[in-house]
């Protein structure tokens, strides 16, 4: 018994301790710790001042709210009172109205009706009048009665009417007050609920707030922190044992029903508990806190999680992008993945991450994505990364993937109809020489022409010294294979008799060819050593002793699109070396290619530049001088008969008995053997993935399909013997670095460890080959970016994003409307490299003016530093080289803007933001070349002879014109050096481009309009209540709908077109009138001029003449006795049949075409101040307000309108007359050297 008692005692004590242990375990769960800490942080943030000193912030807010509450309730009361008053008034008024006047009037009216009846009855029966018209006595009385009542009615009616109006007004007032009451009540309850929320929140973190009102209704607050009842409540709610009832510390859970986890045949909405620990993730103000309390990046710019962002927290949760086990609440089980070795070490220390990883996570399907690759998740909804330039890494990966033709071998969604990235090999024997081809296949990177061609030979698994058992010489086998491939391609391409290229014996002028290369735009897509040298030589800073190369390096940093070499097409250095050995044949190919690229290769993207025969010959001749001596000196890979036999017999033996294979081999001649092996190898190595090879145009690529690669389990990947992390990111990173390494046995080496994204590639010491059979070895070639970690990581990001999941349609980026148009246009822009010539965006700065306001100014770059007065310059400064002129506030318009180095000047400090612009690769070459022409003089002036920037194209030209111009371009400015080439654009592609510019235009109009409206918000002249209310909606965190904006813009124009500034009005009008795809140019309506005064056009057209004439046609003389000058358009522009009178170099577009080309609103902006619209243009601002008053009375704007109307009247322009006599003798025009009239 005693023993049992003791035993009972001991077991009871054990039970008690176990209970306590259990509660402790529950109380100390890791996430609870985070929540307690967060409460502290939040309290400190919210109540920091409150806890230390006077409770300013929170108290103020509370006071504010309470005042709002009382104000709102006061308003409610007031409204109620006034309702009572008005109702009283109304009832008095209506009593009076109905009981007295109206009734009285009605009675009187009846009396009147009776009297009239009686009188008219007499008239009807002839009893009313005598023959002379006097009343008969019987009628006199009736007539009197009638008159009496008529007078009565007339007397009483106005009174009643006014009473009625009074009543209606009172009723209206009542309605308004009632609606005010509703609004006030709503405000009241909103304020009250805000207040309650704040108080509740304070009490949830242990701060007591008591509301005390004094007699006057003023509110004061008392707060208490510490052991108030609220603190006790907080402690009690979260105390162990009782915290199951209503704790404030609890698991936070987000259920997103439309985004699902795939549980195989069951789609279950996501359940994310991440916010249990990441408490500040969707709250602003925690940006500087440590994890897990920190705010999500880009929360502030409304990209993620905020309710105005496209990805609000409530609708997206976390795991849809970050993956991992979102329903776990333990650090390790959530499957956090470190992003660097440092982070891993830290986690190992804090959470024992690695041990847990090995136990739990190893080979798990979807651990969290390391931060480096998180952008891959964007691809789930945004299937086209072009639509989300914000995801830079993903987009870069996508572009690289596309550029290097990965989809040629790997089937990839979105690339089903992608064009092959390499040139066609179908007619290769007409183009290349065989030796070059062999060397090229062996090692393309040694050639100067090298761009994207990957290495397929001499890699880890196909180089001498790699295997233990070298009974064969791998190098010789490689050479033999290359010989076979070459033989097959030659054989195949000479098989087509229908294709031929004529040898060209005529020789052009290479010197002029080089000039043409610089000035015809070749360098927008190609690079060439000589051209680079020319540009560098011209980049020397006149007052600095810097070399061109250096200047260029600096410029490249600032204006990346402009000063980089173009890598779009193949390099033109060393072209000669690869062409056929015979000069005439090589030249023949060049001429054929340049004059019609689609002849040699129907799918070529190269446009026709519409060059003359002479020009073609000259450029060809220049290219004939471009030799790649180093590559030419390399030995030609020599094939080997024994190796050929082994390779071919091995292959043949797969389909027949070995002895038959040998027999078959013996029965063929050498060339047949090579061709046969070559065909097998072209298929084996998948050459046709990038190149068109006859018979293999639609063959499936040799690589693994990538449609669901991002969801591929890590254990499905062959890590070989390499010391890699077992996740797909490490694998792919290594694969792209050394695609064949997985074939090798390994001596040792250290991996990229398990750093998940940081430390580069695995460095491995290989021992030998794992696969004996040559055919069974890995085949993926090595790409030129194999050592570029960033680029590889971006490609990994893209490929890892290909998860093949289907997302709910609400979440899919459907690329509708302008968004889709921009994306589709972007593809075409990229395909034809439009930005090689055109600047698609101009560089811009956000500038703070002296008055503190901000303005965005954009401009065009200069070739040299602008402000020569600055002594100490920081050459790396982006602002140094940029602007010639810019648009912006009036005071600075048209002036050059010297931007000088940081800290040195107050001017510099005014630059708030710099954006480098986009495109225009060809421009520096062109400018440098044109500047050698003394008539052009400076590179900056040369801007006028280059391709126009397209930053406002959609607002500038008409859609229909743009489409037909793209399909069949013509020369708009005769003086321009570089002409728009004829691209092989399909109708769809041209339409996409037009839609792209329209969409861009609409977006910029929306921005402009929003800015205008925000600026007008406070304008006093806007009196319309409805309009005012709408204005309030614009300019918040969420952009207003375009339709709303349009309504507002219409309202503003209707309410006060005359009160708006000219610029504002034009912007609003442009926005209201903008239409796509079916635009209406109201200037072209037949009755457009109907309302204009007589002779309107004739008068206006006189403005455009050189000399002003009066109505009689006589010249007008000024006070100085000189003839007065008009706009003198003819000086530069051709008008109809009349050629420009001035210098040919100045010749500007034909004005007859304006009507079908230009948008009228743009024309207005342009005419009034051209440099403001297009910085650096030669067209000056011509309209001076008072100069032409005696021709056409009116403002500057009316003058511009008039000229615009003339320009839209074709008949007038077509019949334009040559001016009788020039007012002054002109300098004889001459053409630029090398500028034939094209």
């Amino acid at each position, binding site marked *: *018994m005693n023993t049992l008692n003791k035993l009972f005692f001991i*077991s009871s004590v*054990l039970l008690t301790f176990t*209970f306590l242990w259990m509660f402790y375990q529950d109380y100390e769960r890791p996430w609870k710790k985070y929540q307690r800490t967060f409460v502290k942080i939040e309290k400190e943030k919210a109540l920091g001042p409150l806890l230390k000193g006077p409770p300013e912030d929170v108290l103020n807010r509370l006071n504010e709210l309470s005042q709002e509450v009382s104000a709102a309730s006061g308003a409610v009361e007031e409204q109620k009172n006034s309702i009572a008053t008005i109702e009283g008034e109304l009832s008095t008024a209506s009593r009076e109205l109905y009981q007295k006047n109206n009734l009285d009037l009605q009675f009187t009216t009846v009396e009147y009706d009776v009297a009239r009846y009686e009188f008219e009855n007499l008239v009807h029966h002839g009893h009313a009048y005598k023959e002379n018209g006097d009343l008969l006595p019987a009628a006199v009385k009736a007539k009197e009665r009638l008159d009496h009542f008529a007078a009565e009615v007339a007397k009483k009616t106005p009174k009643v009417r006014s009473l009625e109006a009074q009543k209606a007004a009172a009723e209206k007032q009542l309605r308004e007050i009632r609606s005010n009451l509703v609004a006030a009540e709503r405000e009241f309850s909103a304020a009250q609920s805000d207040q309650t929320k704040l108080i509740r929140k304070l009490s949830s973190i242990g701060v007591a707030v008591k509301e005390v009102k004094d007699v006057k209704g003023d509110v004061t607050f008392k707060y208490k922190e510490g052991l108030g009842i609220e603190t006790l409540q907080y402690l009690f709610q979260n105390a162990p044992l009782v915290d199951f009832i209503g704790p404030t510390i609890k698991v936070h859970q987000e259920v997103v029903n439309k985004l699902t986890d795939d*549980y*195989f045949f069951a789609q279950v909405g996501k359940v994310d508990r991440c916010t249990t620990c990441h408490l500040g993730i969707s709250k602003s103000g925690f940006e500087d806190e440590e994890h897990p309390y920190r705010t999500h990046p880009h929360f502030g710019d409304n990209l993620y999680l905020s309710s105005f962002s496209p990805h609000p927290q409530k609708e997206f949760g976390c795991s849809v992008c970050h993956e991992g086990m979102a329903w776990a609440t333990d650090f390790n089980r959530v499957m956090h993945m470190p992003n660097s070795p440092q982070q891993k070490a830290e986690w190992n220390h804090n959470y024992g991450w690695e041990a847990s990883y090995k136990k739990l996570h190893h080979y798990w399907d*979807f651990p969290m994505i390391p931060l480096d690759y998180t952008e891959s998740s964007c691809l789930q909804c945004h299937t086209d990364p072009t639509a989300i330039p914000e995801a830079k890494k993903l987009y870069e990966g996508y572009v690289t993937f596309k550029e290097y033709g990965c989809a040629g071998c790997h089937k990839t969604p979105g690339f089903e109809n992608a064009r092959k990235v390499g040139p066609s090999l179908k007619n290769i024997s007409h183009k290349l020489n065989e030796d070059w081809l062999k060397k090229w296949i062996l090692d393309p990177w040694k050639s100067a022409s090298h761009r994207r061609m990957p290495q397929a030979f001499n890699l880890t698994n196909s180089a001498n010294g790699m295997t233990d058992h070298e009974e064969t010489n791998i190098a010789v086998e490689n050479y033999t294979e290359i010989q076979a491939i070459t033989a097959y391609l030659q054989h195949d391409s000479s098989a087509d008799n229908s294709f031929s290229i004529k040898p060209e014996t005529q020789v052009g002028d290479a010197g002029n060819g080089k000039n043409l290369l610089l000035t015809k735009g070749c360098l927008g897509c190609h690079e060439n050593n000589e051209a680079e040298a020319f540009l560098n030589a011209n980049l020397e800073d006149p007052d600095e002793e810097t070399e061109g190369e250096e200047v260029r390096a600096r410029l490249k940093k600032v204006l990346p699109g402009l000063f980089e070499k173009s890598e779009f097409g193949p390099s033109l250095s060393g072209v000669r070396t690869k062409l056929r050995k015979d000069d005439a044949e090589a030249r023949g190919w060049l001429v054929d290619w340049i004059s019609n690229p689609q002849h040699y290769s129907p799918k070529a993207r190269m446009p026709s530049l519409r060059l003359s025969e002479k020009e073609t010959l000259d450029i060809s001749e220049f290219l004939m001088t471009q030799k790649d001596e180093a590559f030419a000196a390399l030995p030609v890979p020599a094939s080997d008969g024994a190796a050929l036999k082994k390779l071919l017999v091995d292959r043949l033996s797969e389909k027949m008995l070995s002895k038959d294979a040998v027999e078959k081999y013996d029965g063929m001649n050498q060339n047949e053997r090579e061709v046969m092996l070559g065909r097998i190898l072209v298929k084996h190595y998948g050459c046709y993935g990038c190149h068109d090879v006859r018979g293999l145009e639609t063959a499936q690529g040799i690589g693994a399909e990538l449609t669901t690669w991002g969801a591929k*389990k890590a254990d499905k990947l062959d890590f070989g013997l390499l010391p890699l992390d077992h996740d797909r990111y490490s694998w792919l990173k290594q694969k792209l670095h050394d695609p064949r390494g997985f074939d090798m046995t390994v001596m040792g080496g250290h991996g990229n460890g398990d750093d998940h994204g940081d430390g580069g590639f695995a460095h491995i010491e290989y021992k030998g080959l794992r696969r004996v059979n040559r055919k069974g070895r890995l085949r993926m070639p090595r790409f030129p970016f194999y050592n570029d970690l960033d680029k590889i990581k971006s490609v990994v990001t893209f490929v890892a994003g290909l998860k093949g999941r289907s997302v709910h349609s609400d979440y899919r980026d459907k690329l509708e409307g302008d968004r889709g148009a921009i994306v589709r246009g972007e593809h075409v822009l990229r395909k034809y490299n439009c930005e090689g010539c055109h600047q698609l965006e101009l560089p811009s700065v956000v500038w703070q003016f002296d008055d503190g306001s901000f303005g965005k100014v954009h401009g065009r770059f200069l070739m040299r530093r602008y402000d020569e007065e600055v002594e100490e310059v920081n050459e790396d400064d982006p602002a140094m080289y940029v602007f010639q002129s810019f648009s912006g506030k009036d005071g600075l318009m048209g002036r050059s803007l010297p931007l000088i180095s940081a800290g040195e000047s107050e001017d510099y400090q005014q630059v708030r933001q710099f954006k480098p612009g986009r495109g225009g690769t060809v421009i520096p070459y062109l400018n440098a070349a044109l500047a050698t022409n003394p008539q052009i003089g400076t590179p900056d002036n040369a801007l006028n002879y280059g391709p126009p920037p397209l930053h406002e194209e959609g607002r500038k030209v008409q859609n229909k014109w743009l489409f037909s111009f793209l399909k069949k371009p013509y020369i708009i400015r005769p003086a321009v050096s570089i002409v728009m080439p004829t691209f092989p654009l399909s109708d769809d592609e041209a339409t996409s481009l037009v839609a792209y510019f329209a969409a861009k235009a609409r977006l910029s109009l929306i921005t402009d309009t929003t800015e205008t409206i925000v600026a007008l918000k406070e304008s006093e002249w806007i009196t319309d209540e409805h309009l005012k209310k709408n204005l309030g909606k614009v300019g918040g965190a969420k952009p207003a709908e375009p339709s709303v904006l349009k309504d507002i813009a219409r309202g503003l124009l209707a309410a006060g077109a005359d009160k708006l500034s000219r610029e504002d009005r034009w912007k609003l009008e442009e926005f209201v009138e903008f239409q796509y795809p079916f635009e209406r140019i109201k200037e072209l309506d037949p009755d457009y001029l109907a309302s204009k005064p007589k002779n309107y056009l004739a008068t206006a057209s006189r403005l455009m003449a050189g000399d002003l004439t009066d109505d009689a046609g006589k010249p007008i003389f000024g006070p100085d006795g000189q003839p007065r000058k008009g706009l003198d358009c003819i000086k530069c522009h051709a008008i109809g049949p009349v050629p420009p009178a001035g210098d040919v170099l100045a010749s500007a577009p034909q004005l007859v075409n304006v009507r079908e080309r230009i948008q009228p609103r743009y024309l207005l902006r342009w005419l009034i101040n051209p440099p403001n619209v297009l910085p650096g243009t030669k067209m000056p601002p011509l309209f001076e307000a008072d100069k032409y008053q005696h021709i056409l009375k009116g403002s500057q704007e009316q003058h511009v309108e008039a000229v615009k109307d003339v320009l839209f009247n074709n008949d007038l322009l077509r019949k334009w007359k040559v001016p009788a006599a020039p007012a002054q003798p002109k300098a004889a025009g001459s053409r630029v050297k090398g500028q034939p009239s094209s």
Partner: protein
Amino acid sequence: MDIFKLVPEWAWQPKVFFLPISFAFFVVLYNDRLIRILVNPIVAWAAALATTAVFVLGTANPTFKAIISKGDNIPIIMMVYSFGYFTWLALRKGTINDDRADRGLPPLEEAEGHQKVMVWPDLVYVEFICLILVTVGLMVWSIVLKAPLEQPATRVETPNPSKAPWYFLGLQELLVYFDPWIAGVVLPGIIIVGLIAIPYIDNNPKGSGYYTLRDRRFAIAMFLYGFLIMWVLLIFVGTFLRGPNWNIFALGEEWTVHKVEVLNNVNFAEYFWVLGLNQPLPSNWIVRELPGFLFCAGFFVIGPVFLMCEPLGKLLETYLPLIGKTCASFFYFWKRMWVELGFVRYSILAILFLTMVFTVLKMITRWAFNLKYFVSIPEFFFNI
């Protein structure tokens, strides 16, 4: 210290240890002297300590540690101790009673049957303390061994190895050697039917109400072999030795999915026709599988007659030294059963016994000869 390295890896394979263990089982159970050494408490304690030492020292090996610390496997470790203890206890009590019978005393149970204790406190108090201790145990268990949160289960991708609940691992092991319909339906069915049939077959009046070994040696041997060797031992194999791809891994060997084993299994028909008669398999499945059929039929039809073949026993007794007598007693035993039980009950007992032997035989032929099936008719999904 990696204690598993003391045992060579090949020794961990069932084909190596299964027969010796079976043999040792019968030797010990049928040898009165050996069994008396075994039931000595010192030996038992030593065995328990040795087992514990293996578990404790084995944790130095990460794979073994991972296996034994897995929440699911904790019951199996408890099973090792509890089965050992209860088997030992029963055998010990049986031998004590046998000794008492030799001395002419009644069994212990009868001798102690006259003592009396109170419900309170002797029963209820003890039960209450047990209740508390079990509660403590469960709570500690739930705190220390948390439920694993794994990634969502999928029907298209099962864990590797995919294991049944621990108590079914023995049956799962049989799936290696038999088609599912035999291993999963027929054999468990026979086990249940056999257990139900015991009271009707067993006419031995001894051993009722008390422990004894000598009086019921055959019954105890059969039951313990079926339970300890063919059920518990196979659970042990399934838990500790079966790793990824259902390959056998030595205790302590790393469980890697990449391990490759030679599995060149051949059917009986192929042995007979191809290797034996050096001719192709007959295309007619009846002819092809005839040898296998005949073997199986012979096993189950002639087997019961063979078991009671007294002349064979006599022959063995005469010419086989050392174990001849023991072997002969096997035939005499079955002959006696035939006499005592009559045709029907004898047949049922013999068939049940032969089924167990057949199961073992199939496993052994698989290990020894890579025999896949005695009868294999893929045309009907019928494989034995």
